[in-house]
C-alpha cells in the first residue's frame, strides 16, 4: 500500500504514468543532415505508433537533463512511425538535439495545436508565403498538397530568407522548381558574397508573381518570423485578398503544449491549443496577435 493515500503502490504508479500529460514517449533519431550553418534536418521514429500529426502541428522534444522545446513538424501526415523536423540551433535544448547521432533517442510529447485546414482549401488555389525557418512547418502542408495535388488548382510557393546560406531543403526546392504543376519563387534579403543569380529583396517583392491568382479562389498561407506578417498581409490586401482567405501560423513560447503554463498566451487565446494555425480573419481583432 502507498503510505500516503492508501492506494496500492503499483496501481498508483501505473495511473501516474498513464495520466501524466507531461510524460514524454521515446523516439529514436534515424536520420540527421546539416542544412545551413545553424539548421539541421532530423528524422525521428516512435516505437509503437505513428505520431498522427496533421500539417502545421508541433511537438515538444526533450532531452533528459537539458529540457524541452516546442518544434514544428516538417513532414506530411505519415502512416509509418517516423516524422521529420528541421531544428535551428539557438538554445540549450536544440543544441543538445544537434549533438545527437542516429541511434540515440529523444523524448516526444504531442502532436499539439491546430493544423492547416487542408480539407477546406480543396478546389482552390494555394499560395504559400514562407520566410526563413517558416518553410519548415509550411513544408508539412506543401507535401500534403503535393500528395493530393488533384484536390487543389494553382499551387504557388514563395520562399524568402536572409541570405543564400540560409536556404532550407535545397534539394527538394530544385525538384519543386522542375515541376510544371507548381510555381516556386524565391528571394534572399541580401546576396552577401555568395554566388547567387536569383531574386534579391524581401519576401513581399515576390507577391507580384501571384498577381494572376484570383484572390477569391485562392488561400494564402503565411509562415515566417514575427516581423514578416504585417507586411505580407498588407501586400495581400493590395492584391484584394479577403481576410477569410489568409491563413497564418504564429510563433509563441509554447512551453507546456497543453494550455496550462500561460507562456504562449495571445489575448485570450493559447497559441499551443487555439493555434499555431489561425485564419487571419479570426485573430485580426486581437491586440497581441500580429
Amino acid at each position, binding site marked *: 500500500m502507498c503510505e500516503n493515500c492508501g492506494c496500492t503502490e503499483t496501481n498508483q504508479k501505473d495511473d501516474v504514468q498513464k495520466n501524466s*500529460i*507531461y*510524460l*514524454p514517449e521515446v523516439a529514436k533519431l534515424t536520420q540527421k543532415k546539416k542544412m545551413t550553418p545553424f539548421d539541421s534536418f532530423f528524422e525521428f521514429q516512435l516505437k509503437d505508433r505513428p505520431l498522427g500529426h496533421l500539417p502545421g502541428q508541433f511537438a515538444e522534444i526533450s532531452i533528459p537533463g537539458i529540457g524541452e522545446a516546442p518544434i514544428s513538424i516538417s513532414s506530411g501526415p505519415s502512416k509509418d512511425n517516423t516524422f521529420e523536423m528541421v531544428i*535551428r540551433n539557438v538554445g540549450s535544448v536544440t543544441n543538445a538535439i544537434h549533438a545527437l547521432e542516429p541511434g540515440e533517442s529523444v*523524448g516526444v510529447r504531442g502532436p499539439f495545436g491546430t493544423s492547416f485546414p487542408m480539407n477546406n482549401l480543396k478546389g482552390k488555389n494555394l499560395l504559400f508565403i514562407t520566410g526563413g525557418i517558416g518553410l519548415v512547418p509550411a513544408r508539412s502542408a506543401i507535401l500534403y498538397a503535393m500528395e493530393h495535388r488533384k484536390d487543389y488548382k494553382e499551387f504557388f510557393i514563395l520562399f524568402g530568407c536572409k541570405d543564400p546560406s540560409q536556404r532550407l531543403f535545397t534539394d527538394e526546392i530544385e525538384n519543386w522548381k522542375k515541376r510544371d504543376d507548381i510555381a516556386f519563387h524565391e528571394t534572399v534579403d541580401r546576396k552577401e558574397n555568395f554566388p547567387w543569380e536569383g531574386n534579391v529583396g524581401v519576401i513581399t517583392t515576390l507577391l507580384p508573381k501571384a498577381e494572376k491568382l484570383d484572390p477569391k479562389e485562392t488561400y494564402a498561407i503565411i509562415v515566417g518570423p514575427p516581423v514578416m506578417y504585417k507586411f505580407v498581409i498588407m501586400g495581400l490586401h493590395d492584391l484584394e485578398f479577403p481576410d477569410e482567405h489568409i491563413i497564418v501560423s504564429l510563433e509563441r*513560447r509554447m512551453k507546456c503544449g497543453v494550455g496550462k503554463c*500561460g507562456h504562449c498566451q495571445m489575448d485570450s487565446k493559447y497559441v499551443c491549443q487555439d493555434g499555431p494555425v489561425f485564419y487571419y480573419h479570426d485573430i485580426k481583432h486581437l491586440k497581441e496577435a500580429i
Partner: protein
Amino acid sequence: MEILKISKNDFYSFLDRKIAAKESKTIGVVKKGSHYVFAELDAASDLCLDYDVTILPPKKYFQPPKEVLLKYVPKKPESYVAVNECEPITIVGIHYYDLAAIYLMDKAFSEGERDENYLKKRENSLLIGMYPTKPQKNRFARSVTKDQGRKVADIMLTEIGGNLVVEILTPKGKEYLKDAKAVKNDYSMKELEDARNNVKDDQKLPLAVELVPQYLGNHYEHPVWEHFGEKCFSCGSCVLVCPTCYCFDAREEIELSLAEGKRVRVWDGCMLEDFAVVADGHNFRKNKSSRFRHRIFRKGKHLPEKYGYFGCVGCGRCANSCTADIAGPVKVFNYMEENK
C-alpha cells in the same frame, strides 16, 4: 446541506484528535511575526482563525512552488518516469475568496487536458472555509466574487460568539466531522448572514465586475498602462502571491553524481521580463507597460472569457506585496475612471 454548531473549544479539541490520528496532514493559519501563513499544525492551539490575510494563498499545496513532474537518468529518454507526489491534507480556515481562487484553478487544470499533478492533490484535500473576521486594507473580494468558493469547500465555518456554525457541504465533510461534538444549530439564517458580513471590505472596484471584460476591451490603449507600468520593477511579487496565478515554467535539476535528474515545475509569472521570449530572442511583451496590461487583462478579460469567472478574487495580496505600490487592481481601475 446540514448545519451544526460547535463551541470553539470543542472544535479545537476535535482538531487535536485529528492531528494526533494522522489520517491526513492538518494545515491551518498560524501567526508568523506580524503576518499570517498557512502551515502544518502541530497542535490546534497554533491555529488562528482570526486573521486578515495570509502571505501566500493555499495554492502552494496544490501547485507547489517547486514540484517534480518527471524523474530520469540524464540523457536517457527511455528512463523518463512521471511523478505525482501527493498526500491527504486538510486545510482549516481558508477565507471564501481563496476558495473562489481554488474554484478557478480547478477549472484551469481540469478543462481540456487534465493536469493530474494538480488534480490529484485537490482530490486528496479537504477544505474547511470561513469568512474573514478581520479587515485588510487592500481587500475588495466582495466586488469580484460571489459564492463560487462554497462550491469547492467541504465545510464552511462562521464564528458567532464563542461558537462556530458549521455548514457541511459535501459527504467528505460529513465523514470528517463525524466524531466532532457538534449539535444542532439554533442560530437563525439572519444571525448567520450578519456574522458572515460582519467585516466589510476596505476597497471596492469602481465598476460592476460583469462589465470589466468589455471595459478593458475599450481601454487597451490608455495612459494607465504606461503610467503604472513604467514604475514596475518587474520583480514578480504580485504574481507570486496571487491565488489565481498558476503560470509555470519547467526546469531540469540533476544530482551532482549525474546519475539522476528531475524535471520540476516552478512558479513563473507574466510580470517577469522574459516570460514571453521565444527561441530567437524575440520578446512578445518587451515593455513593462505591455506586461502590466497583460496581467490586468488576463484577470479581467481573458480568464472571464475562458472560464466564466473573474480572474481576480480581491484578496489584496498583490497590492500588499508591491514595492512600487502599483499592483492593486482597484488602484488601476480607479485611475482609468478618473482619467477617462
